[in-house]
Each structure stands twice: as C-alpha cells, then as structure tokens.
C-alpha cells in the first residue's frame, strides 16, 4: 500500500497486467511518443504522461504509437481482440469518438450477438472525459451515456486512484469491449492504493458514505463533489448515502434501489448533458421500481443542455458543483418538510 495518483494507479495497472499476460498490447497516439523522431523516445507517454515508462519495459512491439487515424487503430484493436490479442487502445479525448465510432458501436460492440455468441472481443478503450480544463467544446465532453446506450459495450468511470487501478484491471481481464473513462481533472489526485494487482468487479456500486436522510448517486469526478457536499450537509444534521455506481453498464440497480428505499429521497449528479443521460436513466428506474418509497421528487444535478463553453467563468457555471449538489439535497429535504406541515 502506498499513496499513488490516479495517473500512477492507471500506469501501474497497465504494467502489472502486461507482465502477467503477453497478449496485452497498448496502442494510441503518442502513448510512448517520439516515434521516428531524432530526440527522446517515450517523450510523452500520452498527452498527460499516463503511459510514460511502459516503453522501456515492453518495447515498441507492445507499445504501439499510431498515426493520427482513429478509425483504423480503434478498429484494429477490435479486430485484434477478436483474433487473440487483448488490446488496450487509447482514444485520447472521448470527443474524438466522432471519427471512429463505427468501429466501436457497429463492430466491436455487436460481434458477439451478431455472430450468435461465437465471438469474444476483449478490448479496452481508455479515454479522457470531462470539463474543467478550459479545453472548450470539442475536448471537454462527458459522452459516457452514448456508450452506455449501446448493447454489447461495458462502461467504467473510476472516481479515484483506488478505483482506477481496480477497475482497469477488471476491464483488461473482461472478455467484452470496455470503454474506460478517465476524468482529466483527477490525474493528480492521490490516495492509498495497494501495490499488488486487484480487480474491482463491474456492476457492483460502491457506497462511499452511509446516511439516513437522502441518497446521492454520482458518477466519476462527481463522486468527490457529492462527498464534499455531504460533508457540509452532515454539519447541518442532514446525513446522506453517496453511491458511486462505478460502471454505468452494467449498472448496479439493486444498490441504488435499496438506498432509495431506505432514504426516500434521491439526488443524481451527472456531468453529462442532461437529455438521455445517466441521471435521466436512473430517474426512470426509480420511478418504475421505487415510486412508493419516494418522499420528494428526484433532483437531477447536471449541466445545462449546451456545449461546454471555453470562457473559464462560463465553464465553472456549466459543471455541477458541490454547492449545487448541496442545494439539491436541501431541496429534497425541504419538500418533505412542506408535506408534513
């Protein structure tokens, strides 16, 4: 056990799995860097240094820098996965899915079903998502609901360094295609992470905090903000469950429903655009399965239905904040008070 950053935890998961399984290869743009260049090899290790240092151990046979051709290399990962390798491809920013989505959702996702259960496509696509870096509309989106929508894909959203290592190892060992969403604002976060390999099973939510009054379900970086809001509410005598579903597909509906049954109040925090996002999905689930338990209307804390703006003051307004989460919990609490009065 030692303190590791989100970045280091991901790097360690890749290294340990690659040592264990020689069929694992990494591919992506500048994941080592310096290919064919006169200067340093492994110059980048990915744009934010996440894969740095792997080249020295595994060489260019297994650490494959690609040309700027996402359709070709993401598709190649799918083809390689179907024929005996276990590729981990890096789609630098999830926004770039636009140029390679066919290979993901028509090819990799559907092989197993279309081929009558006779195919396996054990690939992982690691990708960065989320607002906060002032990276504007084409580098800041939270597109996980789109992937969650596609049958055949699994989707993981690690919310901390510990989660990142365990979920990535599970993703690599999984025999289905997994889209692994790394929040770009979390790379420098640190916490205690075991040195040995461990896998966190998909579809098992993490109840990061227990409380009696309200349930907050949050995804990715929003888990951290939800806990910050819950800390403040605790001081005001309002105690919350904070549920991190960890994976949106499969989704641990059982834990969410149990928590709603216990507290009767639900706030869902989702960084994705509000139409057809996870907050909407879970709202529908709860309305269908736990309607009778609800003491207040469900609150969704999401960005507005607009692209991510560049100007820092607008971007800060755009992303859900701990303040907005706190206000939403107070709103579900106040609703009960009004009813009783």
């Amino acid at each position, binding site marked *: 056990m030692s303190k590791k950053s989100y970045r280091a935890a991901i790097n360690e998961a890749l290294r340990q799995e690659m040592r264990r399984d020689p069929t694992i290869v990494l591919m992506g743009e500048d994941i080592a860097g310096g290919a064919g260049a*006169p200067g340093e090899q492994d110059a980048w290790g990915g744009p934010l240094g996440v894969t740095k240092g792997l080249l020295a151990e595994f060489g260019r046979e297994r650490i494959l820098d690609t040309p700027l*051709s996402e359709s070709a290399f993401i598709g190649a990962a799918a083809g390689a996965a179907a024929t005996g390798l276990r590729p981990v491809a890096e789609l630098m920013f999830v926004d770039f899915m636009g140029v390679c989505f066919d290979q993901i959702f028509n090819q990799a996702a559907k092989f197993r079903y279309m081929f009558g259960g006779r195919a396996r496509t054990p690939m992982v696509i690691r990708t960065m998502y989320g607002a906060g870096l*002032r990276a*504007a509309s*084409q*580098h800041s989106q939270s597109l996980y609901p789109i992937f969650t929508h596609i049958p055949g894909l699994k989707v993981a959203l690690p919310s901390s360094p510990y989660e990142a290592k365990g979920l990535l190892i599970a993703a690599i060992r999984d025999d289905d295609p997994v889209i692994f969403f790394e929040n770009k604002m979390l790379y420098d976060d640190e916490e205690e992470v075991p040195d040995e390999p461990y896998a966190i099973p998909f579809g098992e939510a993490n109840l990061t905090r227990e409380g009696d009054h309200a349930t907050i379900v949050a995804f990715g970086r929003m888990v951290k903000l939800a806990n910050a809001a819950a800390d403040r509410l605790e001081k005001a005598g309002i105690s919350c469950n904070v549920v991190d579903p960890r994976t949106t597909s499969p989704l641990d509906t059982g834990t969410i429903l149990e928590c709603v049954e216990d507290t009767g109040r639900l706030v869902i925090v989702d960084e994705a655009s509000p139409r057809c996002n996870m907050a909407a999905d879970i709202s529908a689930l709860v309305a269908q399965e736990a309607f009778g338990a609800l003491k207040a209307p469900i609150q969704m804390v999401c960005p507005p239905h607009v692209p991510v703006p560049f100007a820092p003051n607008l971007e800060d307004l755009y992303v859900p904040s701990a303040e907005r989460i706190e206000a939403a919990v107070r709103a579900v609490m106040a609703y009960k008070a009004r009813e009783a009065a």
Partner: protein
Amino acid sequence: MQMNREDLLQAYRRMRTIREFEERLHLEFATGEIPGFVHLYAGEEACAVGICMQLTDRDAIASTHRGHGHCLAKGVEVAGMMNEIYGRKSGLCGGKGGSMHIADLSKGMLGANGIVGGGPPLICGAALTAKVLKTGAVAVAFFGDGASNQGTTLESLNLASIWNLPAIFVCEDNGYAESTSSAYSVGGSQAGRAAGFGMPCHEVDGFDFFAVHDAAATAIARARAGEGPSMLHVRLSRYFGHFEGDATTYRAPGEVERLRAERDCIARFRKRVTEAALLDDADLDSADEAVTGEIEHAVADAKNAPLPSEADLLTDVYVAY
C-alpha cells in the same frame, strides 16, 4: 506572378503580425493568464500568408488547432482574436470558443478546429457551394502531416476529385504530429497520395514565401478555372512545442535554433526584397514597429476586457428552439 510594392509590404506585415502575436502569446501563456490549450504557428508564417493573400473574403479556408496564423493571414482582426483567446465577451466568438475555435465567417474563415482532420470535408462543402452557386470562389483546407493520415482527409481528396471541386488541399508538413514524426506516421508520400486521387501536387519549400505564393497561384488559378482540386505539400517547421507546455524532448538538440538562424521565412523574405531593392529596411522596420504596437495594444485590451455574462452560457445553441 508579379507582386507590387504594396503586396510585398502587406505580406511582410502579415507574417510579422503572426510572429509577434505568437511570440507574445508564448510569453503570456507562461504567466498562467491564458486558459486552455494554445498551439502556436510561429515559423510557418510564409505558408498561411503566401496562400491567403491571394484569396478574397468570399474564398473559404478551414484551419486546424494551430489556427492563429491562418486567421491573421485571412484578415481576421487581431483584437477580436486576442480577446477570444483570453475568454472575453468581446472575443470573436464571445469567449465561447477560445484559441482552438476562432472563426470569422465574414472573412471566409471557417474556423480553427479541435478535431484533427475536421477541416478537409468542410472545405469540400465550401467548394461545392462555390460550384453550385457559381460564385467563382475557391476553398482551401489547411491540414498537418498528422491530419494527412486521417480518413476524413483522404476521403475528402477523393470527393473533391470526383466532383471536380474548386478546392486546394494544403498539407503543412512540419515533421511532427505532437511528438510523432511524419517519417514514421506517413505511409507513401503526400505527392503519391495526391496522384492516387488524380490531382496535381506541388512540392513547396515552406520557408520560402515566394515558392508558396507561386505554387498557390497556380492551384488557385486552376480551381477558379473549374479545372479541379490541387494539393500543396509544404515543408516547414514550428518553432514552439506542439502546445504551450510541451517540452519538445523528441526534437534533436539545436534543431529549432538552427532553423531559426538559417531558414527563417521572415528573415529570408526581408533579405530577398531588400537585396532586390523592392523594399528598403526603413519600410520593413516601420512595419515591425507598427506590428509591435498593435499586439501590445491587443494584449492590454484583452486583459482588461469584460468576461461573458452568466446568461451567455445558455445562448447560441440553436438558431431557434
């Protein structure tokens, strides 16, 4: 193609504006005041200016993430750009786009682009508009050596060819896509690719303004005459990192210093026009001075300009909703 004194002075002034703009941003970025990603065009000025000075506002260009030079060469206002880069309401895009999304449709500038390979298909569209509406306009796609490997780029070459579009594809080959060299990433050659799609390719020394200018003149004339698309393969170099903050350890030691000292496009231009007595040093020095003042003013103005208002977050998503 003959250039008169005024053209030459304008070319010089535009190249110097780009250089000064980018060198200043390099310094300002380091102070932490500029948000987001910034990719600088310094070193590549002859390419944007040599081509764009032969275009009118009706002719369209599509740019890249490294877009400041294309904007300035196409006549986009310095102040509006600077304000945009600082995320101000007075920016060309109201602060919503930033460095990677500067656009000015009134100047035929269809936008910098955060998606590599995003521009070439758009340019097929702009060229189609020119063709269908018979405007006589041409459309120019700037794209990097990295972008040349994107499916969108290769599909666009084919589309422009079979539709015989008035399009020009300018491959700005600065040798790198981020840290990856084009020697590694490009299979075959740009000229071979152009030939494969049935269009001529001009091999151009991008450090030489006049070489760019002449090749562009030929390609533009061909497009305007309805004879179809061309490619320009322009070899050049960027002086700064891929983005501000890139340590550029993948480059050879001294690579940039040597290029700056021996091949710089602006120094070369100055030498050539003064030796040929087309312009004198005094003309050029006063252009330098004017440019410095303009950039200084734009930076000071942008730093003090108001931010977008809260209400701006929700506007401009649709024309009507």
